[in-house]
């Protein structure tokens, strides 16, 4: 066996002067992260340190060889997620992405941690918890212990601290650990977390010598006493997100239906006609509009369709506005409809409310369900037993198709073909509806 010389990579800048206060826990953090990288001996070009904001966030400047991404407050995990997905799914999954974040960053960006844990993205989060916002002047954070005195909790903190390990564990994090920044073994723990495939979080408990120790009785011993997650808490057998995505989603072939429309019919229409269908959600109003639009396009016309319904999509009114034209359609609104079809009480209510009725002229043909209450409208109104003949579900389309028999706007042959293709054997019902309705539209 030939002995290969393995290159040992370096990561941290040589003789870098640390930007932290004397005694700050971030010194240990940086050194242990460097230890971990040295231990793993990863090619630094395949490592990206994604740092957050705060004193801990400026650690990126201490690393000479890995890629660094110094981000915005709390968002580091979200940027890292994007890097990892692009690396793991679009590339060769070569990278190790490490998030460097403080307790402040962890709360402002909590959702990103939660979601990364849930997705199990292959990202390692090293959370420097010094119980406060160091950089901005030692204000308390959601990680501050009870009774903690800071400039913003002069009487002592009265809200218990967040347990981030338990939060991400609940969210399915596959690796969770806690350790003191001074723990001799921290380098090994970080190395283990980085090597772990999938989401890993290590909460590193630290002292801020500028703001924590001067005003609180807090020392290494107390910090050690806070450690609850000392064994690696791994959830085995859970694939990381990128692997799962590649396996289950990527390249999954869905049938692509060819929805090209061939204009094989013709229409004598010159100019533009504007039609409003006003009915009830769930009664196929928008489908009627869509099939009519398709028939118009099959007849060589241009067409636009827009739908409206209340914010809750499946209840209340359903309105569809159609324009069909022998010319390019420019203005897509309806100032004076050529036809209005009102197939239900909800449809009438909305046609009143949105001004459709008052926009009608004496040229407008209005086909309305017979049982609706009386309404004011300048148009030629035909009150027909739509619901009795067609039931609510076919009322809009059957009424529109019947009107088209009289008007010849789109090719009736095209419309019948659309109905037959869409409704198969049930299309007979539509044919019957149309036979009954046409004689009643006496224009």
């Amino acid at each position, binding site marked *: 066996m030939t002995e290969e010389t393995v290159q040992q990579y370096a990561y941290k800048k040589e003789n870098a002067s640390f930007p932290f206060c004397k005694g700050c826990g971030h010194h240990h953090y940086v050194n242990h992260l460097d230890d971990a990288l040295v231990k793993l001996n990863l090619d*630094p*070009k*395949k490592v*990206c340190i994604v740092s957050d904001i705060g004193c801990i966030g*400026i650690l*990126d*400047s201490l690393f000479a060889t890995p*890629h*660094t*991404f*110094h*981000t*915005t407050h709390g*968002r580091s995990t*979200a*940027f*890292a*997620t*994007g*890097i*990892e*997905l*692009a*690396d793991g*799914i*679009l*590339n060769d999954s*070569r*990278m190790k992405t490490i998030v460097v974040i403080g307790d402040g960053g962890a709360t402002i960006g909590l*959702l*990103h941690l*939660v*979601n990364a844990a849930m997705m199990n993205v292959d990202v390692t989060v090293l959370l420097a918890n010094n119980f406060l916002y160091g950089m901005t002047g030692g204000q308390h954070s959601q990680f501050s212990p009870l009774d903690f005195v800071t400039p913003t909790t002069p009487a002592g903190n009265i809200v218990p601290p967040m347990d981030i390990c338990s939060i991400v564990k609940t969210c399915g994090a596959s690796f969770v650990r806690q350790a003191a920044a001074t723990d001799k073994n921290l380098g090994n723990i970080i190395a283990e977390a980085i090597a772990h495939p999938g989401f890993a979080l290590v909460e590193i408990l630290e002292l801020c010598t500028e703001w924590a120790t001067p005003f609180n009785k807090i020392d290494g011993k107390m910090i050690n006493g806070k450690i609850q997650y000392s064994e690696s808490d791994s959830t085995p057998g859970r694939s990381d997100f990128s692997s799962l*995505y590649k396996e289950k*989603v*990527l*390249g*999954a*072939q*869905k049938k692509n239906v060819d*929805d*090209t*429309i061939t204009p094989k019919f013709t229409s004598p229409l010159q100019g533009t006609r504007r039609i409003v269908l006003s009915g009830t959600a769930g009664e196929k109003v928008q489908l009627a509009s869509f099939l009519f*639009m*398709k028939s118009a*396009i099959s007849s060589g016309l*241009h*067409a*636009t*369709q*827009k*739908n*409206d*319904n209340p914010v809750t999509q499946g209840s209340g009114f359903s309105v569809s506005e159609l324009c069909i034209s022998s010319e390019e*359609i*420019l*203005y*897509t*609104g309806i*100032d004076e409809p050529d036809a209005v079809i009102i197939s239900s009480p909800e449809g009438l209510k909305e046609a009143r409310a949105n001004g459709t009725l008052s926009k009608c002229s004496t040229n407008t043909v209005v086909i309305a369900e017979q049982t609706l209450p009386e309404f004011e409208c300048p148009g030629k109104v035909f009150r027909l037993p739509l619901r009795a003949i067609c039931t609510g579900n076919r009322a809009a389309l059957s009424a529109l198709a019947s009107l088209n028999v009289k008007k010849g706007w789109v090719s009736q042959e095209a419309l019948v073909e659309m109905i037959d293709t869409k409704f198969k054997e049930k299309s007979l019902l539509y044919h019957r509806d149309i036979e009954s309705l046409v004689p009643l539209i006496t224009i």
Partner: protein
Amino acid sequence: MAIVMVENNEKTMNPSSIKIRTGNQMIAEGALHAGCQFFAGYPITPASGVYKAMIEQLPQRNGVAISAPDEISALAYCVGASGRGAKAMTASSGPGWSLMIETVQYALMTELPVVIALVQRLGPSTGGATQNGQADILFTEFCTSGGYTIPIFAPSTPQECFEVTTIAFKWAELLRTPVIILSDKEVGMMSEDVDFAQLKSSPAWYRKEFSTQNGKEHLTYDFQELADVPLFSPVGGNYKVTMTGSAHDKRGTLQKNSSETLDVLIHLQKKIEAHIEEMAIVRVDEQENADTLLLSFGITARTAKEAARRANAEGKKVRNANIITLFPIPETLLKEAARGVRRIVVAEENMTGQYRSVIQSLFAGKEIVGVNSVGKMITPGMIMEALV
């Protein structure tokens, strides 16, 4: 300037291939045509159609389309992916855009290309989800602390949604900057016949990559002239990348007020300004001897075109122009369109004439009036009244 064309995937399309599509679906089609590889979305009416179409189509083309837990994450995922080298896009509307403003500035500062499709609805706050608006013009453009130009393109038809999306990707990639497609509910959600054989598009471009063949050390934000675009190298690639949203030198080192750092800050704006003319698109319906120029964009541009036709048929002299590039303001083309006219009418569906307010200084000595509306489409009649 670092421009390279890597691929021209212009399809040879059928003689006629008509499909029914919404503007939102055509933004997705345009993104695929432009080579988008990464999409992250969060639902919001009226932009969800883009999200849905990308989820359906991108993974089939071996791209990533994922669901984010909020818009902050959606854009941050995209920017992270862009740093790893992917062409990325997200889509939203006013309320979601509110959440994206921190991250769009990060993309601008770190010179990471990303395309954001915003489909406007009625504001403020949650406003009207299913009502139209063109009232996020200033909100979208003037969102950076520091006052930087973000290119914004506004489509008025599904066809233009396709075209403008390919153009947005082009400039995002070539200038390494966030670019916004500013659509609106009417354009985004209305369906229409679209002949795919007639679609216009920009060829697909990719940011120019750094290689040692350039004979220089890799600096993340390197440039010679202020307007140059730094050559790109992805994180995970062969050259160390130093990204930062804080003020930095060319190497990416955090700095306070060094002259190089100030140069970097100026460069971010200069690289955009150097391409104002190339980015400018204003579509003019020529009318010789016009005495009125009618300006609009988005859905209102269609209405304006109709109003101008009707007015001209009545013997008026109206030149109509559809402004596709809202920002950087296409000054030369707008002035050219205004040649000889006495009066300028700007039609836009917002209360105070937002776009009018930023262009009116271009037209000294001419009368400039607005046609405006809130929560209701501008009609051809409303515009014709202003075409006196």
